[in-house]
Protein backbone atom coordinates (compact mmCIF):
# COMPACT_ATOMS: atom_id res chain seq x y z
CA UNK A 1 0.00 0.00 0.00
CA UNK A 2 1.41 3.37 -1.01
CA UNK A 3 0.86 6.60 0.86
CA UNK A 4 -1.14 7.90 -2.11
CA UNK A 5 -3.50 5.52 -3.89
CA UNK A 6 -5.31 6.69 -7.02
CA UNK A 7 -7.89 4.21 -8.27
CA UNK A 8 -9.84 4.31 -11.55
CA UNK A 9 -9.93 8.09 -11.64
CA UNK A 10 -11.73 9.64 -14.60
CA UNK A 11 -12.46 13.26 -15.42
CA UNK A 12 -14.35 14.68 -18.36
CA UNK A 13 -14.52 18.32 -19.48
CA UNK A 14 -17.44 18.56 -21.88
CA UNK A 15 -16.44 16.45 -24.87
CA UNK A 16 -12.89 15.89 -23.70
CA UNK A 17 -12.06 12.84 -21.62
CA UNK A 18 -9.10 14.37 -19.78
CA UNK A 19 -8.47 11.39 -17.53
CA UNK A 20 -9.73 7.85 -17.82
CA UNK A 21 -9.04 4.91 -15.57
CA UNK A 22 -5.96 6.33 -13.92
CA UNK A 23 -4.39 4.03 -11.35
CA UNK A 24 -1.38 5.20 -9.46
CA UNK A 25 0.33 4.15 -6.28
CA UNK A 26 3.00 6.33 -4.72
CA UNK A 27 5.18 4.51 -2.17
CA UNK A 28 6.21 6.26 1.00
CA UNK A 29 9.57 8.05 1.01
CA UNK A 30 10.15 7.79 -2.72
CA UNK A 31 10.32 10.29 -5.54
CA UNK A 32 7.63 9.45 -8.03
CA UNK A 33 7.62 11.27 -11.35
CA UNK A 34 4.60 11.60 -13.62
CA UNK A 35 5.60 12.41 -17.17
CA UNK A 36 3.80 12.62 -20.45
CA UNK A 37 3.45 14.74 -23.56
CA UNK A 38 1.40 17.95 -23.61
CA UNK A 39 -2.28 17.34 -22.98
CA UNK A 40 -1.68 13.97 -21.36
CA UNK A 41 -3.67 15.03 -18.29
CA UNK A 42 -0.80 15.53 -15.85
CA UNK A 43 -2.06 18.80 -14.43
CA UNK A 44 -5.66 17.58 -14.32
CA UNK A 45 -4.50 14.60 -12.28
CA UNK A 46 -2.59 16.84 -9.91
CA UNK A 47 -5.60 19.13 -9.50
CA UNK A 48 -7.67 16.09 -8.58
CA UNK A 49 -5.18 15.22 -5.85
CA UNK A 50 -5.24 18.64 -4.15
CA UNK A 51 -8.96 19.31 -4.22
CA UNK A 52 -9.05 21.87 -7.00
CA UNK A 53 -10.99 19.44 -9.21
CA UNK A 54 -13.26 16.60 -8.21
CA UNK A 55 -12.92 13.53 -10.45
CA UNK A 56 -16.09 12.09 -12.01
CA UNK A 57 -15.18 8.54 -11.11
CA UNK A 58 -12.74 6.66 -8.93
CA UNK A 59 -11.12 7.36 -5.59
CA UNK A 60 -8.05 9.14 -4.26
CA UNK A 61 -6.81 7.91 -0.89
CA UNK A 62 -4.08 9.60 1.07
CA UNK A 63 -2.77 7.55 3.98
CA UNK A 64 -6.00 5.55 4.11
CA UNK A 65 -8.30 8.58 3.99
CA UNK A 66 -10.22 9.84 0.98
CA UNK A 67 -9.34 13.35 -0.19
CA UNK A 68 -12.34 13.64 -2.52
CA UNK A 69 -14.77 16.41 -1.69
CA UNK A 70 -12.37 18.15 0.66
CA UNK A 71 -11.30 21.76 0.16
CA UNK A 72 -7.66 22.46 -0.73
CA UNK A 73 -6.92 23.81 2.75
CA UNK A 74 -8.27 20.63 4.37
CA UNK A 75 -6.16 18.45 2.11
CA UNK A 76 -3.12 20.53 2.96
CA UNK A 77 -3.84 20.10 6.66
CA UNK A 78 -3.88 16.32 6.04
CA UNK A 79 -0.25 16.56 4.98
CA UNK A 80 -0.12 17.29 1.25
CA UNK A 81 1.72 20.42 0.15
CA UNK A 82 1.74 21.68 -3.41
CA UNK A 83 4.35 23.66 -5.31
CA UNK A 84 2.98 25.47 -8.35
CA UNK A 85 4.29 25.72 -11.87
CA UNK A 86 4.77 29.46 -11.52
CA UNK A 87 5.87 30.16 -7.95
CA UNK A 88 2.89 31.17 -5.83
CA UNK A 89 4.10 33.21 -2.90
CA UNK A 90 2.78 36.22 -0.98
CA UNK A 91 4.32 38.93 -3.14
CA UNK A 92 3.32 41.86 -0.92
CA UNK A 93 4.91 40.32 2.15
CA UNK A 94 8.55 40.03 3.14
CA UNK A 95 10.43 36.76 2.79
CA UNK A 96 10.31 36.17 6.54
CA UNK A 97 6.56 36.84 6.69
CA UNK A 98 6.07 34.44 3.79
CA UNK A 99 7.82 31.77 5.78
CA UNK A 100 5.84 32.54 8.95
CA UNK A 101 2.44 32.00 7.39
CA UNK A 102 2.77 28.22 6.83
CA UNK A 103 4.28 27.99 10.32
CA UNK A 104 1.15 29.65 11.71
CA UNK A 105 -0.99 27.31 9.61
CA UNK A 106 0.89 24.36 11.08
CA UNK A 107 0.53 25.62 14.65
CA UNK A 108 -2.97 27.12 14.66
CA UNK A 109 -4.81 25.09 12.04
CA UNK A 110 -6.92 26.45 9.21
CA UNK A 111 -8.38 29.37 11.18
CA UNK A 112 -7.59 31.11 14.44
CA UNK A 113 -8.66 34.59 15.48
CA UNK A 114 -5.31 35.70 16.83
CA UNK A 115 -6.07 39.40 16.66
CA UNK A 116 -4.53 40.83 19.81
CA UNK A 117 -1.15 39.09 20.33
CA UNK A 118 1.72 40.67 18.40
CA UNK A 119 3.55 38.84 15.63
CA UNK A 120 6.82 39.89 17.25
CA UNK A 121 5.90 37.88 20.37
CA UNK A 122 5.30 34.61 18.51
CA UNK A 123 8.72 33.21 19.44
CA UNK A 124 8.32 29.60 18.26
CA UNK A 125 6.92 30.59 14.89
CA UNK A 126 9.61 33.22 14.38
CA UNK A 127 12.32 30.73 15.31
CA UNK A 128 10.87 28.08 13.06
CA UNK A 129 10.63 30.50 10.13
CA UNK A 130 14.19 31.76 10.67
CA UNK A 131 15.40 28.18 10.85
CA UNK A 132 13.70 27.28 7.58
CA UNK A 133 15.17 30.36 5.87
CA UNK A 134 18.58 29.28 7.13
CA UNK A 135 17.93 25.80 5.67
CA UNK A 136 17.00 27.31 2.32
CA UNK A 137 20.03 29.61 2.35
CA UNK A 138 17.78 32.64 2.24
CA UNK A 139 18.40 34.12 5.67
CA UNK A 140 20.14 37.18 4.24
CA UNK A 141 17.05 38.01 2.16
CA UNK A 142 14.60 37.82 5.06
CA UNK A 143 13.52 41.47 4.96
CA UNK A 144 13.24 41.69 1.19
CA UNK A 145 9.88 42.04 -0.49
CA UNK A 146 9.31 38.57 -1.86
CA UNK A 147 7.98 39.96 -5.16
CA UNK A 148 11.47 41.30 -5.90
CA UNK A 149 13.17 37.89 -5.60
CA UNK A 150 14.54 36.14 -8.69
CA UNK A 151 12.54 33.29 -10.20
CA UNK A 152 14.87 30.71 -8.71
CA UNK A 153 14.68 32.28 -5.26
CA UNK A 154 10.91 32.45 -5.44
CA UNK A 155 10.87 28.73 -6.18
CA UNK A 156 13.23 28.10 -3.27
CA UNK A 157 11.04 30.15 -0.98
CA UNK A 158 7.91 28.33 -2.12
CA UNK A 159 9.50 24.93 -1.54
CA UNK A 160 10.75 26.13 1.84
CA UNK A 161 7.25 27.30 2.77
CA UNK A 162 5.87 23.89 1.87
CA UNK A 163 8.59 22.08 3.79
CA UNK A 164 8.10 24.21 6.90
CA UNK A 165 4.75 22.50 7.32
CA UNK A 166 6.49 19.13 7.40
CA UNK A 167 4.15 17.61 4.83
CA UNK A 168 4.17 13.87 4.24
CA UNK A 169 3.63 14.30 0.53
CA UNK A 170 5.09 17.11 -1.55
CA UNK A 171 3.53 17.65 -4.98
CA UNK A 172 5.60 19.56 -7.52
CA UNK A 173 4.07 20.83 -10.75
CA UNK A 174 6.89 21.32 -13.29
CA UNK A 175 9.16 22.93 -10.72
CA UNK A 176 11.79 23.93 -13.27
CA UNK A 177 9.50 25.23 -16.02
CA UNK A 178 10.88 28.39 -17.58
CA UNK A 179 14.09 28.34 -15.57
CA UNK A 180 17.61 28.98 -16.73
CA UNK A 181 19.91 25.93 -16.76
CA UNK A 182 21.77 27.05 -13.62
CA UNK A 183 18.53 27.59 -11.71
CA UNK A 184 17.25 24.22 -12.91
CA UNK A 185 20.35 22.46 -11.62
CA UNK A 186 20.13 24.28 -8.30
CA UNK A 187 16.53 23.18 -7.97
CA UNK A 188 17.46 19.57 -8.78
CA UNK A 189 20.18 19.65 -6.11
CA UNK A 190 17.76 21.16 -3.62
CA UNK A 191 15.13 18.49 -4.30
CA UNK A 192 17.72 15.71 -4.10
CA UNK A 193 18.84 17.05 -0.74
CA UNK A 194 15.25 17.22 0.50
CA UNK A 195 14.48 13.68 -0.65
CA UNK A 196 17.64 12.33 0.96
CA UNK A 197 17.44 14.14 4.29
CA UNK A 198 13.75 14.26 5.05
CA UNK A 199 11.04 11.81 5.79
CA UNK A 200 9.04 12.85 2.80
CA UNK A 201 7.36 11.48 -0.31
CA UNK A 202 7.66 13.55 -3.45
CA UNK A 203 5.41 13.35 -6.47
CA UNK A 204 6.68 15.41 -9.35
CA UNK A 205 5.14 16.34 -12.69
CA UNK A 206 7.79 17.24 -15.19
CA UNK A 207 8.51 17.85 -18.81
CA UNK A 208 12.26 18.04 -18.63
CA UNK A 209 13.73 14.50 -18.94
CA UNK A 210 17.01 15.66 -17.44
CA UNK A 211 15.18 16.61 -14.24
CA UNK A 212 13.09 13.45 -14.19
CA UNK A 213 15.95 11.02 -14.65
CA UNK A 214 18.14 12.74 -12.09
CA UNK A 215 15.46 12.64 -9.39
CA UNK A 216 12.89 9.90 -9.79
CA UNK A 217 12.87 6.49 -8.14
CA UNK A 218 9.78 5.51 -10.04
CA UNK A 219 8.12 6.91 -13.16
CA UNK A 220 4.58 6.82 -14.47
CA UNK A 221 4.07 7.76 -18.09
CA UNK A 222 0.73 9.33 -18.86
CA UNK A 223 -0.59 9.57 -22.42
CA UNK A 224 -4.03 10.75 -23.53
CA UNK A 225 -5.38 10.70 -20.01
CA UNK A 226 -4.39 7.22 -19.09
CA UNK A 227 -1.22 5.64 -17.66
CA UNK A 228 0.92 3.96 -20.29
CA UNK A 229 3.53 2.31 -18.07
CA UNK A 230 4.81 2.55 -14.55
CA UNK A 231 8.38 1.41 -13.99
CA UNK A 232 11.88 2.24 -12.79
CA UNK A 233 13.79 4.95 -14.64
CA UNK A 234 16.19 2.51 -16.38
CA UNK A 235 13.33 0.56 -17.91
CA UNK A 236 11.42 3.67 -18.91
CA UNK A 237 14.36 4.99 -20.90
CA UNK A 238 14.36 2.03 -23.24
CA UNK A 239 10.63 1.39 -23.37
CA UNK A 240 9.38 1.56 -26.98
CA UNK A 241 5.84 2.52 -25.94
CA UNK A 242 7.17 5.59 -24.16
CA UNK A 243 9.26 6.57 -27.14
CA UNK A 244 6.23 6.23 -29.32
CA UNK A 245 4.07 8.39 -27.08
CA UNK A 246 6.71 11.08 -26.96
CA UNK A 247 8.25 11.06 -30.38
CA UNK A 248 5.71 9.58 -32.73
CA UNK A 249 5.40 6.17 -34.29
CA UNK A 250 8.69 4.81 -35.49
CA UNK A 251 11.17 6.90 -33.56
Amino acid sequence: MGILEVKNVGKRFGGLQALSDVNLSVKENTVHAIIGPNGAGKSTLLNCLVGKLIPDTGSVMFDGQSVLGRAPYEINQMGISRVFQTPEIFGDLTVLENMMIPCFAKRDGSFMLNAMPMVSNQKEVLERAEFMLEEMNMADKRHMHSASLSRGDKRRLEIGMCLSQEPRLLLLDEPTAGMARADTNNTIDLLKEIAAERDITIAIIEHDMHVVFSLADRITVLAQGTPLVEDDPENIRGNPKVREAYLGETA
Partner: protein
Amino acid sequence: MFGLDKRDTGVLIIVALLALFAPIILNPFPTDSAMAQFNAGYPDLMQKFVIFGIFAIGFNILFGLTGYLSFGHAAFLGIGSYSCVWMFKLLGYNVIPGIFLSILISGLFALLIGFVSLRRSGIYFSILTLAFAQMCFALAYSVLSNPRFNLTNGETGLQVYANDPQWFHRDGLPDLPHLFGLSMRATQKIQVGAWEFQFNAGYYLCALIMLVCFYLAIRIFRSPFGMMLRAVKSNQQRMNYTGLNSRPYTLAAFVISGMYAGLAGGLLSAVDPLAGAERMQWTASGEVVLMTILGGAGTLIGPVLGAGFIKYFENIFSKINDNVLHSWFAFLPDGMEDFMVFIIHPFIGKGWHLTLGILFMLVVIYLPGGLVEGGQRIQGWFRKRGTKTEAKAGKTEPAE
Protein backbone atom coordinates in the same frame (compact mmCIF):
# COMPACT_ATOMS: atom_id res chain seq x y z
CA MET B 1 4.07 50.96 25.56
CA PHE B 2 0.87 48.83 25.74
CA GLY B 3 2.79 46.07 23.97
CA LEU B 4 3.52 48.24 20.91
CA ASP B 5 6.96 48.81 19.45
CA LYS B 6 8.61 52.23 19.44
CA ARG B 7 7.31 53.47 16.12
CA ASP B 8 3.71 52.49 16.72
CA THR B 9 3.83 53.97 20.21
CA GLY B 10 5.08 57.19 18.62
CA VAL B 11 2.21 57.24 16.14
CA LEU B 12 -0.31 56.55 18.90
CA ILE B 13 1.08 59.34 21.08
CA ILE B 14 1.02 61.81 18.19
CA VAL B 15 -2.60 60.93 17.43
CA ALA B 16 -3.47 61.23 21.13
CA LEU B 17 -1.85 64.68 21.37
CA LEU B 18 -3.55 65.86 18.18
CA ALA B 19 -6.90 64.67 19.52
CA LEU B 20 -6.32 66.26 22.91
CA PHE B 21 -5.30 69.66 21.55
CA ALA B 22 -7.53 69.65 18.48
CA PRO B 23 -9.72 72.51 19.78
CA ILE B 24 -6.57 74.67 19.86
CA ILE B 25 -4.76 73.34 16.78
CA LEU B 26 -7.83 73.63 14.57
CA ASN B 27 -8.46 77.23 15.64
CA PRO B 28 -5.38 79.01 14.39
CA PHE B 29 -7.13 82.22 13.36
CA PRO B 30 -8.47 84.90 15.76
CA THR B 31 -12.25 84.86 16.04
CA ASP B 32 -12.82 88.23 14.40
CA SER B 33 -10.28 87.92 11.60
CA ALA B 34 -11.25 87.39 7.97
CA MET B 35 -9.64 83.95 8.07
CA ALA B 36 -11.84 82.81 10.97
CA GLN B 37 -14.07 80.91 8.56
CA PHE B 38 -11.21 78.48 8.00
CA ASN B 39 -11.21 77.58 11.69
CA ALA B 40 -12.38 74.02 12.23
CA GLY B 41 -12.17 73.98 16.00
CA TYR B 42 -15.86 74.00 16.79
CA PRO B 43 -17.51 70.98 18.47
CA ASP B 44 -19.80 69.94 15.65
CA LEU B 45 -17.01 69.58 13.11
CA MET B 46 -14.43 68.12 15.50
CA GLN B 47 -16.92 65.43 16.48
CA LYS B 48 -17.34 64.59 12.81
CA PHE B 49 -13.57 64.37 12.40
CA VAL B 50 -13.15 61.72 15.07
CA ILE B 51 -16.38 59.82 14.37
CA PHE B 52 -15.65 59.49 10.67
CA GLY B 53 -12.08 58.72 11.69
CA ILE B 54 -13.42 55.67 13.54
CA PHE B 55 -15.53 54.75 10.52
CA ALA B 56 -12.51 54.95 8.21
CA ILE B 57 -10.18 53.10 10.61
CA GLY B 58 -12.64 50.22 10.65
CA PHE B 59 -13.12 50.31 6.89
CA ASN B 60 -9.36 50.19 6.47
CA ILE B 61 -9.16 46.95 8.46
CA LEU B 62 -11.27 45.35 5.75
CA PHE B 63 -10.17 47.21 2.63
CA GLY B 64 -6.60 48.08 3.54
CA LEU B 65 -5.66 44.63 4.81
CA THR B 66 -7.74 42.14 2.82
CA GLY B 67 -8.33 44.25 -0.31
CA TYR B 68 -12.07 43.46 -0.25
CA LEU B 69 -13.73 46.71 -1.31
CA SER B 70 -17.06 46.99 0.43
CA PHE B 71 -19.45 49.50 -1.09
CA GLY B 72 -22.05 49.11 1.60
CA HIS B 73 -20.45 50.10 4.87
CA ALA B 74 -22.82 53.00 5.38
CA ALA B 75 -25.49 50.40 6.16
CA PHE B 76 -23.68 49.61 9.40
CA LEU B 77 -23.30 53.31 10.16
CA GLY B 78 -27.05 53.73 9.83
CA ILE B 79 -27.84 50.58 11.81
CA GLY B 80 -25.61 51.86 14.61
CA SER B 81 -27.38 55.21 14.60
CA TYR B 82 -30.85 53.68 14.79
CA SER B 83 -29.80 51.29 17.56
CA CYS B 84 -28.44 54.11 19.64
CA VAL B 85 -31.53 56.29 19.25
CA TRP B 86 -33.72 53.33 20.19
CA MET B 87 -31.79 53.00 23.42
CA PHE B 88 -32.43 56.69 24.06
CA LYS B 89 -36.12 56.15 23.45
CA LEU B 90 -36.42 53.09 25.63
CA LEU B 91 -33.89 53.51 28.40
CA GLY B 92 -33.00 57.15 28.59
CA TYR B 93 -30.41 59.57 27.40
CA ASN B 94 -27.30 57.89 28.81
CA VAL B 95 -25.06 57.14 25.82
CA ILE B 96 -23.39 53.96 27.15
CA PRO B 97 -26.19 51.43 26.39
CA GLY B 98 -26.78 53.04 23.01
CA ILE B 99 -23.13 52.75 22.01
CA PHE B 100 -22.99 49.11 23.11
CA LEU B 101 -26.17 48.18 21.29
CA SER B 102 -25.01 49.91 18.11
CA ILE B 103 -21.80 47.84 18.10
CA LEU B 104 -23.72 44.63 18.80
CA ILE B 105 -26.47 45.06 16.21
CA SER B 106 -24.17 46.24 13.45
CA GLY B 107 -21.89 43.30 14.24
CA LEU B 108 -24.82 40.91 13.77
CA PHE B 109 -25.80 42.55 10.48
CA ALA B 110 -22.18 42.44 9.33
CA LEU B 111 -22.06 38.73 10.10
CA LEU B 112 -25.14 38.12 8.00
CA ILE B 113 -24.22 40.39 5.08
CA GLY B 114 -20.58 39.30 5.15
CA PHE B 115 -21.50 35.62 5.19
CA VAL B 116 -23.40 36.01 1.93
CA SER B 117 -21.25 38.65 0.21
CA LEU B 118 -17.91 36.98 0.92
CA ARG B 119 -18.88 34.03 -1.23
CA ARG B 120 -17.64 36.21 -4.06
CA SER B 121 -14.61 38.44 -4.37
CA GLY B 122 -13.57 41.45 -6.41
CA ILE B 123 -16.22 43.48 -8.18
CA TYR B 124 -18.96 40.95 -7.36
CA PHE B 125 -18.29 41.37 -3.66
CA SER B 126 -18.51 45.15 -4.02
CA ILE B 127 -21.80 44.90 -5.89
CA LEU B 128 -23.25 42.46 -3.34
CA THR B 129 -22.40 44.75 -0.43
CA LEU B 130 -23.81 47.71 -2.34
CA ALA B 131 -27.01 45.79 -2.97
CA PHE B 132 -27.35 44.89 0.72
CA ALA B 133 -26.74 48.49 1.74
CA GLN B 134 -29.38 49.75 -0.67
CA MET B 135 -31.78 47.14 0.71
CA CYS B 136 -31.08 48.39 4.22
CA PHE B 137 -31.66 51.94 3.01
CA ALA B 138 -34.98 51.00 1.42
CA LEU B 139 -36.03 49.16 4.57
CA ALA B 140 -35.17 52.13 6.75
CA TYR B 141 -36.60 54.73 4.43
CA SER B 142 -39.98 53.20 3.78
CA VAL B 143 -40.62 49.54 4.58
CA LEU B 144 -39.95 49.66 8.31
CA SER B 145 -41.83 52.87 8.92
CA ASN B 146 -45.53 52.18 8.60
CA PRO B 147 -48.09 53.12 11.22
CA ARG B 148 -48.38 49.58 12.54
CA PHE B 149 -44.69 48.88 12.86
CA ASN B 150 -42.55 51.97 13.00
CA LEU B 151 -38.93 51.09 13.57
CA THR B 152 -37.19 53.86 11.68
CA ASN B 153 -39.68 56.72 11.32
CA GLY B 154 -38.94 56.96 7.60
CA GLU B 155 -38.23 60.30 6.03
CA THR B 156 -38.49 62.29 9.24
CA GLY B 157 -35.77 60.31 10.91
CA LEU B 158 -35.85 58.51 14.22
CA GLN B 159 -35.86 60.82 17.22
CA VAL B 160 -36.87 60.88 20.85
CA TYR B 161 -40.39 62.13 21.63
CA ALA B 162 -41.80 63.30 24.94
CA ASN B 163 -44.08 60.24 25.23
CA ASP B 164 -41.26 57.71 24.81
CA PRO B 165 -40.81 55.38 27.82
CA GLN B 166 -37.21 56.32 28.77
CA TRP B 167 -37.37 53.97 31.76
CA PHE B 168 -34.20 55.16 33.41
CA HIS B 169 -34.72 58.85 32.83
CA ARG B 170 -34.80 60.76 36.15
CA ASP B 171 -35.39 64.41 36.92
CA GLY B 172 -32.12 66.28 37.13
CA LEU B 173 -30.55 64.38 34.27
CA PRO B 174 -30.03 66.45 31.11
CA ASP B 175 -32.75 66.18 28.50
CA LEU B 176 -30.13 65.45 25.88
CA PRO B 177 -27.60 62.63 25.43
CA HIS B 178 -25.30 62.52 28.42
CA LEU B 179 -22.67 60.37 30.06
CA PHE B 180 -23.85 59.79 33.64
CA GLY B 181 -25.13 63.35 33.83
CA LEU B 182 -22.42 65.05 31.77
CA SER B 183 -24.23 66.46 28.76
CA MET B 184 -22.66 65.80 25.38
CA ARG B 185 -23.34 69.42 24.50
CA ALA B 186 -21.48 70.76 27.55
CA THR B 187 -18.86 73.11 26.17
CA GLN B 188 -16.21 75.05 28.03
CA LYS B 189 -15.29 78.20 26.14
CA ILE B 190 -11.93 79.74 26.92
CA GLN B 191 -10.97 83.17 25.66
CA VAL B 192 -7.26 83.69 25.01
CA GLY B 193 -6.58 87.12 23.56
CA ALA B 194 -8.41 87.30 20.25
CA TRP B 195 -8.88 83.56 20.13
CA GLU B 196 -11.73 81.50 21.51
CA PHE B 197 -11.28 77.80 22.14
CA GLN B 198 -14.18 75.42 22.72
CA PHE B 199 -13.72 72.26 24.76
CA ASN B 200 -16.73 70.03 24.26
CA ALA B 201 -17.66 66.94 26.29
CA GLY B 202 -19.10 65.06 23.32
CA TYR B 203 -15.96 65.66 21.33
CA TYR B 204 -13.70 64.37 24.07
CA LEU B 205 -15.80 61.24 24.57
CA CYS B 206 -15.63 60.52 20.84
CA ALA B 207 -11.91 61.30 20.72
CA LEU B 208 -11.25 58.93 23.60
CA ILE B 209 -13.19 56.15 21.88
CA MET B 210 -11.37 56.93 18.64
CA LEU B 211 -8.03 56.50 20.42
CA VAL B 212 -9.11 53.12 21.79
CA CYS B 213 -10.24 52.12 18.29
CA PHE B 214 -6.97 53.32 16.82
CA TYR B 215 -4.99 51.38 19.39
CA LEU B 216 -6.99 48.20 18.70
CA ALA B 217 -6.46 48.71 14.97
CA ILE B 218 -2.69 48.91 15.50
CA ARG B 219 -2.85 45.67 17.48
CA ILE B 220 -4.81 43.99 14.70
CA PHE B 221 -2.36 45.26 12.07
CA ARG B 222 0.59 43.82 13.99
CA SER B 223 -1.05 40.52 14.98
CA PRO B 224 -0.86 37.13 13.27
CA PHE B 225 -4.49 37.75 12.28
CA GLY B 226 -3.47 40.97 10.52
CA MET B 227 -0.71 39.10 8.73
CA MET B 228 -3.23 36.53 7.51
CA LEU B 229 -5.46 39.32 6.21
CA ARG B 230 -2.53 40.74 4.24
CA ALA B 231 -1.92 37.22 2.94
CA VAL B 232 -5.52 37.12 1.70
CA LYS B 233 -4.90 40.31 -0.26
CA SER B 234 -1.57 39.10 -1.59
CA ASN B 235 -2.35 35.59 -2.82
CA GLN B 236 -5.48 33.75 -1.86
CA GLN B 237 -4.55 30.68 -3.88
CA ARG B 238 -1.30 30.19 -1.98
CA MET B 239 -3.18 30.72 1.24
CA ASN B 240 -5.67 27.96 0.51
CA TYR B 241 -2.88 25.59 -0.49
CA THR B 242 -1.06 26.44 2.74
CA GLY B 243 -3.83 24.95 4.82
CA LEU B 244 -5.56 28.21 5.68
CA ASN B 245 -9.25 28.80 5.18
CA SER B 246 -9.50 32.37 3.93
CA ARG B 247 -13.29 32.65 4.36
CA PRO B 248 -13.44 32.95 8.18
CA TYR B 249 -10.51 35.37 8.11
CA THR B 250 -12.26 37.70 5.69
CA LEU B 251 -15.54 37.28 7.53
CA ALA B 252 -13.90 38.21 10.84
CA ALA B 253 -12.37 41.28 9.21
CA PHE B 254 -15.75 42.20 7.74
CA VAL B 255 -17.51 41.87 11.09
CA ILE B 256 -14.83 43.88 12.90
CA SER B 257 -15.02 46.69 10.37
CA GLY B 258 -18.82 46.54 10.50
CA MET B 259 -18.67 46.95 14.26
CA TYR B 260 -16.36 49.96 13.88
CA ALA B 261 -18.89 51.46 11.47
CA GLY B 262 -21.73 50.71 13.87
CA LEU B 263 -19.83 52.36 16.70
CA ALA B 264 -19.30 55.44 14.54
CA GLY B 265 -23.02 55.50 13.77
CA GLY B 266 -23.86 55.16 17.45
CA LEU B 267 -21.60 58.08 18.28
CA LEU B 268 -23.21 60.21 15.58
CA SER B 269 -26.50 59.67 17.41
CA ALA B 270 -24.87 60.19 20.77
CA VAL B 271 -23.79 63.71 19.88
CA ASP B 272 -26.98 64.49 17.98
CA PRO B 273 -29.92 62.19 18.83
CA LEU B 274 -31.41 61.93 15.38
CA ALA B 275 -30.99 59.04 12.94
CA GLY B 276 -32.05 59.34 9.34
CA ALA B 277 -32.03 56.87 6.48
CA GLU B 278 -29.79 59.12 4.36
CA ARG B 279 -26.89 57.96 6.51
CA MET B 280 -27.22 54.58 4.79
CA GLN B 281 -27.27 55.88 1.26
CA TRP B 282 -24.65 54.71 -1.19
CA THR B 283 -23.02 58.14 -1.28
CA ALA B 284 -22.15 57.66 2.38
CA SER B 285 -20.59 54.30 1.56
CA GLY B 286 -18.62 55.90 -1.23
CA GLU B 287 -17.44 58.64 1.11
CA VAL B 288 -15.65 56.24 3.43
CA VAL B 289 -13.96 54.61 0.42
CA LEU B 290 -12.75 58.07 -0.62
CA MET B 291 -11.52 58.82 2.88
CA THR B 292 -9.52 55.62 3.09
CA ILE B 293 -7.96 55.91 -0.36
CA LEU B 294 -7.29 59.63 -0.02
CA GLY B 295 -5.51 59.13 3.29
CA GLY B 296 -3.72 55.95 2.28
CA ALA B 297 -5.32 52.50 2.28
CA GLY B 298 -3.49 49.93 4.35
CA THR B 299 -1.68 52.53 6.45
CA LEU B 300 -2.45 53.12 10.11
CA ILE B 301 -2.97 56.85 10.18
CA GLY B 302 -4.12 57.38 6.58
CA PRO B 303 -7.84 56.80 7.09
CA VAL B 304 -7.94 59.27 9.99
CA LEU B 305 -6.22 61.91 7.86
CA GLY B 306 -8.54 61.18 4.94
CA ALA B 307 -11.61 61.46 7.14
CA GLY B 308 -10.42 64.79 8.54
CA PHE B 309 -9.53 66.07 5.09
CA ILE B 310 -12.91 65.29 3.53
CA LYS B 311 -14.97 66.50 6.47
CA TYR B 312 -12.97 69.73 6.54
CA PHE B 313 -13.69 70.36 2.88
CA GLU B 314 -17.32 69.44 3.25
CA ASN B 315 -17.84 71.88 6.09
CA ILE B 316 -15.48 74.73 5.27
CA PHE B 317 -15.45 74.95 1.48
CA SER B 318 -19.17 74.54 1.28
CA LYS B 319 -19.61 77.65 3.43
CA ILE B 320 -17.67 79.99 1.18
CA ASN B 321 -20.11 81.93 -0.99
CA ASP B 322 -19.86 84.64 -3.61
CA ASN B 323 -20.05 87.42 -1.03
CA VAL B 324 -16.99 86.01 0.71
CA LEU B 325 -15.19 85.79 -2.63
CA HIS B 326 -16.05 89.39 -3.46
CA SER B 327 -14.60 90.51 -0.18
CA TRP B 328 -11.39 88.55 -0.89
CA PHE B 329 -10.92 90.04 -4.34
CA ALA B 330 -12.11 93.52 -3.42
CA PHE B 331 -8.59 94.88 -4.00
CA LEU B 332 -8.81 94.05 -7.72
CA PRO B 333 -10.35 96.40 -10.30
CA ASP B 334 -14.09 95.82 -10.73
CA GLY B 335 -13.98 93.76 -13.93
CA MET B 336 -11.14 91.58 -12.66
CA GLU B 337 -12.92 91.03 -9.36
CA ASP B 338 -16.06 89.75 -11.07
CA PHE B 339 -13.95 87.63 -13.39
CA MET B 340 -12.08 85.94 -10.52
CA VAL B 341 -15.32 85.27 -8.67
CA PHE B 342 -16.78 83.84 -11.85
CA ILE B 343 -13.81 81.49 -12.23
CA ILE B 344 -13.78 80.26 -8.64
CA HIS B 345 -17.52 80.14 -8.16
CA PRO B 346 -18.04 76.53 -9.40
CA PHE B 347 -15.48 75.22 -6.89
CA ILE B 348 -17.02 76.58 -3.71
CA GLY B 349 -20.29 76.43 -1.86
CA LYS B 350 -22.37 73.66 -3.36
CA GLY B 351 -19.52 73.03 -5.78
CA TRP B 352 -17.18 71.75 -3.10
CA HIS B 353 -17.62 68.25 -4.52
CA LEU B 354 -15.88 69.48 -7.64
CA THR B 355 -12.86 70.65 -5.65
CA LEU B 356 -12.82 67.40 -3.73
CA GLY B 357 -13.07 65.40 -6.94
CA ILE B 358 -10.11 67.22 -8.48
CA LEU B 359 -8.04 66.76 -5.33
CA PHE B 360 -8.98 63.09 -5.21
CA MET B 361 -7.89 62.59 -8.80
CA LEU B 362 -4.61 64.39 -8.19
CA VAL B 363 -3.91 62.24 -5.13
CA VAL B 364 -4.79 58.96 -6.82
CA ILE B 365 -2.70 59.79 -9.91
CA TYR B 366 0.36 61.34 -8.29
CA LEU B 367 0.27 59.83 -4.80
CA PRO B 368 -1.20 56.33 -5.08
CA GLY B 369 -0.34 55.78 -1.42
CA GLY B 370 -2.52 58.73 -0.40
CA LEU B 371 -1.67 61.59 1.92
CA VAL B 372 0.59 59.27 3.91
CA GLU B 373 2.75 58.73 0.84
CA GLY B 374 2.83 62.48 0.34
CA GLY B 375 4.12 62.90 3.87
CA GLN B 376 6.73 60.20 3.36
CA ARG B 377 7.94 61.84 0.14
CA ILE B 378 8.34 65.18 1.85
CA GLN B 379 10.17 63.47 4.70
CA GLY B 380 12.43 61.61 2.25
CA TRP B 381 13.11 64.82 0.38
CA PHE B 382 14.22 66.58 3.55
CA ARG B 383 16.35 63.61 4.57
CA LYS B 384 18.02 63.53 1.17
CA ARG B 385 18.82 67.21 1.41
CA GLY B 386 20.16 66.60 4.90
CA THR B 387 22.50 63.83 3.77
CA LYS B 388 23.62 65.89 0.78
CA THR B 389 24.71 68.78 2.92
CA GLU B 390 26.37 66.34 5.31
CA ALA B 391 28.15 64.68 2.41
CA LYS B 392 29.33 68.06 1.21
CA ALA B 393 30.61 68.87 4.65
CA GLY B 394 32.36 65.50 4.76
CA LYS B 395 34.00 66.16 1.42
CA THR B 396 35.31 69.55 2.29
CA GLU B 397 37.01 68.34 5.42
CA PRO B 398 39.76 66.21 3.84
CA ALA B 399 40.55 69.05 1.47
CA GLU B 400 41.81 71.12 4.33
